[in-house]
């Protein structure tokens, strides 16, 4: 039994500190929809998704009302579409994106992820066509998200794919330049992509996953910050303890919702992602936690150390609260989705080089960063290669989601609205990596891969 004084604490967390479930993501395998005829495959995809996810949104809304917990996003992730595209080589894979879009609208979800390819060790049938179709697919759809895994600790980095993705990120931004380059905000390039990630834009349903599964991502930077603000005078071990206790509570809520959604939908529970996911709302910022710990501004010297401690404490607190943990699990540092990061970037305290260092110790990578519209494709490729190298060597997930702000320069702003937020265009190095990128080939798997 709980104490009655626990109740106001929970209510305050939800009402004043933005505690919520960020996403309930239903993973659906499309392997049984593969067909040599793309129209048949698309019909099967639509039918399977709308059948499996029919009750997802109503059930989540029911849970929201009964438990009083906001569930911000309801999402679907599917088998990487490149695997379906492999069976119909002569057709334009954009048809798959349109089928996913129709299914997303029919089920009422916020996003559908899985317009993806896994090319860390080379291209198989379907991969080339899918990659080339990404700019068009993200232009003609609204809810579809795309991801490409170009490296892993086990495989090394596919630099041909890296070169290609630099061009594709640019082309995607150009095609959607009239909509604030939104296409590039729905595209992420991974190293060591997890197969059970519930977060967008990188969610896809891995081939090792069951036919369908419920994965849940929690949020709660505001709660962590508020807990720290109420506890003056702690040393860093004390701060870490406090974060652990708070993360435990946040994750328990995620576990409860995941179990309940799984029971009501009769779909197995997969994982809870132990995440600290910010939103642009004031008071829901990871940067503000770092500042509460003791930095004048996020990006100051000491940011990496504070973030490493935060990330570790979130995982330690969360892991005991959930029966199964997975996904990205850790603190997110997306610039445009975090009020504190936006401020820090605007004031010049936070630079892309510092963000790169931060990605070595937290959950993802260079996320939601606006870069100048005239950034050459090979510079974007090289940014991807740098991030992938950090992930490959440290056996962790890293990713790049940068948005070339077409027609804009450093200091100007790009706004996406909603959870994707807005932010300033940040400076990138103008020195050319063109020769490195033009070499192509594969960066071999590192010595860290030889664990057997």
């Amino acid at each position, binding site marked *: 039994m709980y104490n009655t004084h*626990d109740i*106001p604490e929970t*209510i305050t967390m939800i009402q004043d500190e933005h505690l919520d479930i960020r996403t309930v993501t239903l993973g659906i395998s499309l392997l049984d929809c593969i067909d040599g005829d793309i129209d048949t495959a698309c019909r099967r995809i639509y039918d399977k998704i709308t059948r499996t996810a029919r009750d997802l949104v109503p059930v989540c809304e029911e849970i929201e*009302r*009964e438990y*009083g917990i906001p569930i911000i996003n309801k999402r679907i992730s599917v088998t990487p579409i490149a695997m379906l595209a492999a069976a119909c080589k002569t057709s334009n894979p954009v048809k798959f994106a349109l089928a996913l879009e129709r299914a997303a609208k029919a089920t009422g979800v916020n996003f559908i992820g899985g317009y993806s390819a896994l090319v860390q060790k080379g291209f198989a049938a379907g991969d080339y066509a899918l990659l080339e179709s990404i700019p068009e697919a993200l232009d003609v759809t609204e809810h579809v998200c795309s991801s490409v895994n170009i490296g892993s600790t086990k495989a090394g980095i596919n630099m041909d794919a890296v070169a290609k993705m630099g061009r594709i990120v640019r082309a995607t931004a150009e095609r959607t330049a009239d909509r604030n380059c939104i296409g590039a905000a729905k595209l992420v390039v991974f190293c060591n992509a997890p197969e059970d990630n519930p977060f967008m834009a990188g969610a896809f349903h891995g081939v090792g996953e069951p036919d369908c599964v419920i994965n849940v991502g929690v949020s709660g930077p505001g709660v962590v910050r508020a807990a720290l603000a109420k506890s003056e005078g702690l040393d860093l071990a004390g701060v870490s303890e406090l974060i652990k206790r708070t993360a435990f509570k946040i994750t328990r809520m995620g576990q409860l919702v995941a179990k309940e959604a799984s029971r009501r939908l009769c779909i197995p529970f997969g994982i809870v992602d132990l995440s600290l996911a910010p939103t642009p709302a004031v008071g829901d910022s990871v940067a503000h936690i770092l500042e509460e710990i003791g930095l004048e501004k996020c990006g100051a010297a000491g940011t990496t150390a504070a973030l490493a401690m935060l990330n570790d404490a979130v995982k330690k607190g969360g892991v005991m609260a959930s029966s199964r943990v997975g996904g990205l699990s850790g603190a997110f540092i997306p610039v445009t989705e975090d009020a504190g990061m936006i401020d820090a970037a605007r004031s010049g305290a936070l630079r892309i080089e510092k963000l790169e260092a931060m990605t070595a110790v937290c959950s993802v990578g260079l996320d939601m960063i606006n870069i100048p519209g005239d950034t050459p494709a090979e510079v974007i490729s090289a940014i991807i290669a740098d991030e992938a190298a950090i992930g490959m060597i440290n056996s962790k997930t890293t990713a790049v989601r940068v948005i070339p702000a077409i027609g804009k320069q450093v200091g100007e702003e790009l706004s996406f609205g909603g959870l994707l937020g807005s932010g300033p265009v940040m400076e990138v190095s103008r020195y050319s990596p063109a020769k490195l990128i033009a070499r192509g080939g594969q960066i071999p798997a590192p010595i860290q891969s030889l664990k057997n």
Partner: protein
Amino acid sequence: MRAVITVVGKDNVGILARVSSECAKYQVNISEVSQTILHDLFCMIMVCEVDRLTIEFGEFADRMKQVGEELGMSIQAMHEDLFNSMHRI
């Protein structure tokens, strides 16, 4: 099943009467009531049995929210499991 109803806002005459009569209307049995002051506001917590509830629980939660709006207070009815899972191992 048990539920927790929280009432937060500026203190006034008749709050308890209004909330408990609403509970009675839908066959909700109040088993525990406590009051605290939270951020200088009146805060009442009721633990209730809702097994004999005559409407869907979600609908009851909406109804209580509406009563809160009428009283100028924030009223929430939430499933008890949320508090059990967050505060007990």
